[in-house]
C-alpha cells in the first residue's frame, strides 16, 4: 500500500484472525464432539480437547445412516447434475450464438425467463411433475377429450392413464435441477468473445458445425467449464429440498439427508457425537474440492453469478 502503518496492519491481521476463528469455531466443536463418547458429550461444560473416539463414532454414523450407499448416491447425483448442466448449457449457448434461425430470440427468452423462477417456489407442482412426468401429456389428453373421441368413433370405452414415476430414481433427483439459465448465459457470454475469424477459418477448411464445436469451441471453453463444474458439483452435493421430497426410500437418499436424520430430537438419545462425526464426513468431499481447486473455484463463483 501507499504508506506504512504497522498498527493498522496489525489490526487487520487481528480482524482476519477473528474471521478465521468465526469460520473454524463450529468446525472445531464439531470435531471435538465427534471424538467424545455420549456421556462425555453431555457433560456441562463440554471438554475443550478432543477425546479418542472419533473413528468409533464415525463407524457408528456410517452404519446408522448407511453412508456407504448415501455417499455413492451423492456422488452420482452431484456429478450427474454437473455434467448435465454443462452439456445442455453448452449446446444451447452454441445454438443461440452461432446459428441464425427463426425462433432464436424466442428460445433465448424462454431460457432467460427460467432464471427468474427459482425451483424452490413451486414445491408442490414440481413434486407432481417428478412423481409422474407423463402428467402433462395426460392433461393434454384429458383436455382434448381423446377418450370421448375414441368412444364416439369405435363405440368401445378405453381408459388412458399414463405414468412415469421418477420418485426414488437418480433421474428424478437430477433432471429437475439440470436446466440452467445462468450456465447458458455464462457460455453465451464467453462465446461472444471468441474471435470471428476462427469460424471463418474452420469453414475454409470445410469443417461442419458440430466439428467446429468439438474441435475448436469446446477446447477453448475448457477453463470456463472447469470453473463452472466446481460450483455445480458443490450445488449438486449440497442439495437438500429435492432429495428430501423425491426420496421416500431410505437407500435412495443423499448423504446430506443422512446427516439430517442423525440430529437428535427431544425424544431420542442425544447422540450429538455421532451426528457431528457424520456432518464432518459429509462436508469433506466438497471442502476438499474447494481447497484443491481454489483458483478455479473463485473464478467459477464470480463468473457464474454475473
Amino acid at each position, binding site marked *: *500500500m*501507499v504508506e506504512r502503518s504497522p498498527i*493498522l*496492519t496489525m489490526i*487487520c491481521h487481528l*480482524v*482476519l484472525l477473528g474471521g478465521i476463528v*468465526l*469460520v*473454524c*469455531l463450529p468446525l472445531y*466443536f464439531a470435531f471435538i*464432539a465427534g471424538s467424545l463418547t455420549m456421556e462425555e458429550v453431555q457433560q*456441562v461444560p*463440554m471438554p475443550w480437547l478432543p477425546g479418542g473416539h472419533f473413528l468409533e463414532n464415525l463407524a457408528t454414523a456410517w452404519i446408522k445412516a448407511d453412508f456407504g450407499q448415501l455417499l455413492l448416491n451423492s456422488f452420482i447425483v452431484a456429478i450427474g447434475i454437473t455434467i448435465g448442466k454443462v452439456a445442455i448449457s453448452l*449446446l*444451447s449457448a*452454441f*445454438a443461440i*450464438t*452461432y*446459428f*441464425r*434461425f427463426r425462433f432464436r430470440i424466442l428460445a433465448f427468452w*424462454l431460457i432467460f425467463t427460467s432464471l427468474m*423462477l427459482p*425451483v*424452490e*417456489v*413451486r*414445491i*408442490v*407442482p414440481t413434486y407432481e*411433475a*417428478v412423481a409422474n*412426468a407423463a402428467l402433462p401429456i395426460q392433461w393434454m389428453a384429458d383436455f382434448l377429450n381423446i377418450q370421448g373421441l375414441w368412444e364416439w368413433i369405435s363405440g368401445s370405452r378405453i381408459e388412458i392413464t399414463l405414468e412415469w414415476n421418477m420418485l426414488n430414481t437418480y433421474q428424478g433427483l437430477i*433432471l429437475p435441477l439440470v*436446466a440452467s439459465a445462468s450456465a447458458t448465459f455464462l457460455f*453465451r457470454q464467453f462465446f*461472444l468473445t471468441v474471435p*470471428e475469424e476462427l469460424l471463418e477459418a474452420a*469453414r475454409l477448411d470445410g469443417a461442419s*458445425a458440430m466439428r467446429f464445436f468439438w474441435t475448436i469451441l469446446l477446447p477453448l471453453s475448457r477453463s470456463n467449464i472447469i470453473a463452472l463444474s466446481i460450483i455445480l458439483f458443490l450445488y449438486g452435493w*449440497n442439495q*437438500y*429440498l429435492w432429495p428430501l*421430497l423425491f426420496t421416500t426410500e431410505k437407500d435412495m437418499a443423499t448423504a*446430506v439427508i443422512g*446427516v*439430517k436424520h442423525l*440430529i437428535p430430537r427431544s425424544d431420542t438419545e*442425544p447422540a*450429538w457425537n455421532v451426528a*457431528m462425526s457424520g*456432518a464432518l464426513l*459429509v462436508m469433506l468431499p466438497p*471442502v476438499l474440492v474447494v481447497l484443491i481447486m481454489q483458483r478455479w473455484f*473463485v473464478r467459477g*463463483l*464470480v463468473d457464474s453469478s454475473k
Partner: protein
Amino acid sequence: MVATTHEPGLKHAHFQTAGLPALLLLPQLLILLFFFFIPSIRALMQAFLLTDPFGASVHFVWFDNFTALFASDSYRNSIWVTIWFTLAQNVVTIAVALVLAFATDRVVRFQSGYKSVILLPYAIAPVIAGVMWAFLFNPAVGPIAFFIKALGFQWDPNRNGSDAMLLVVLAASWKHICYDYIFLVAGLLAVPRSLMEAAAVDGAGPIRRFSQIALPLLGPTLFFLTTMNFVYGFFETFAIIDAVTRGGPAGATNILVYKVYQDGFVNLDLGSSAAQSVLLMTFALLLTLLQFKYVERKVNYSI
C-alpha cells in the same frame, strides 16, 4: 451455410443450417418445459382452485386463496418473520464481509491463507451448517449455550421465538459471509491504485480512503450482493430452518418458503400452497429484474 449479417447476440459469422439448432436446444427446452413452465402454470392454475385434500372435488374460486392468505394470521406472521430474517441476515453478512474484505486488502502476508479459510463455508451444505449451529447453541449440551447461561442469560431456542430467530440468522449468515466477502475482495482489487495514491498524497488516511473512495466505487457490488442476499434468505435457507428450528417455536422462524412446504406437504392445502408459490414467484421475478436493471455489467470482477 455460413452467413455474415449482424444481429444482436449472434456471431457475425454464423450457420444457417435448419433443424440443427432446434436439436441442440431440445434438451434444455424439454427440461424447462417439464420442470419449470408446466409446474409454474400448474401453480398459477391451482392458486385459483379449491381442491379438497383427496382431490375428489375441485372448484374455481377466483382470488379466494389469496384473500384467505392475507386474512390468515400465520401467513402475515410468516411475512414479517421473512422480512426480519432476511434483513438481519443481510446486515450481518454485508457488515462482517466488508470488514474482512477491507482487512484482506490491506495485509500482504498470509493473504491467500486467510482467503482460503474464510471461503470454506461456501463448500458446506446449508443443512450441515444448520446442524453444527444447532449443536453449538443446544440448551442442554451446546458449548456456546453454556457460556450464554454462565453469563446469566436465559437461552432456549426450542421455547423462545427470538432466541430461535437469532440462531437461524447466525447460522444463515455464517454460511453466506464468504460469498459477499469474495465479491468485495474482487471489487476492492478493481479500485484504481492511482486514485488511492492520489488521495494518499492529498493526506487522506487508509480509513478515509476506504470510506470516501473505495466504498462509493463498490456501490454496484454492494447492491448486487444485497439482492443476492435476499434471494439467498428467501429461497436457499430452507435447509437451515428445517435442520435448526423446523419453523418453530410457534411459527417464530417459519419463513415463506418453509410455509409453502408445510402447507403443501404436511397440511396438504394445495390451493393455499399454490397461491403462496405464485406470490413468491412474483417476488423472485421482481428481485431478478431489479438485479438486471441496475447491476448487470456494472460490476467489475477481476480476481
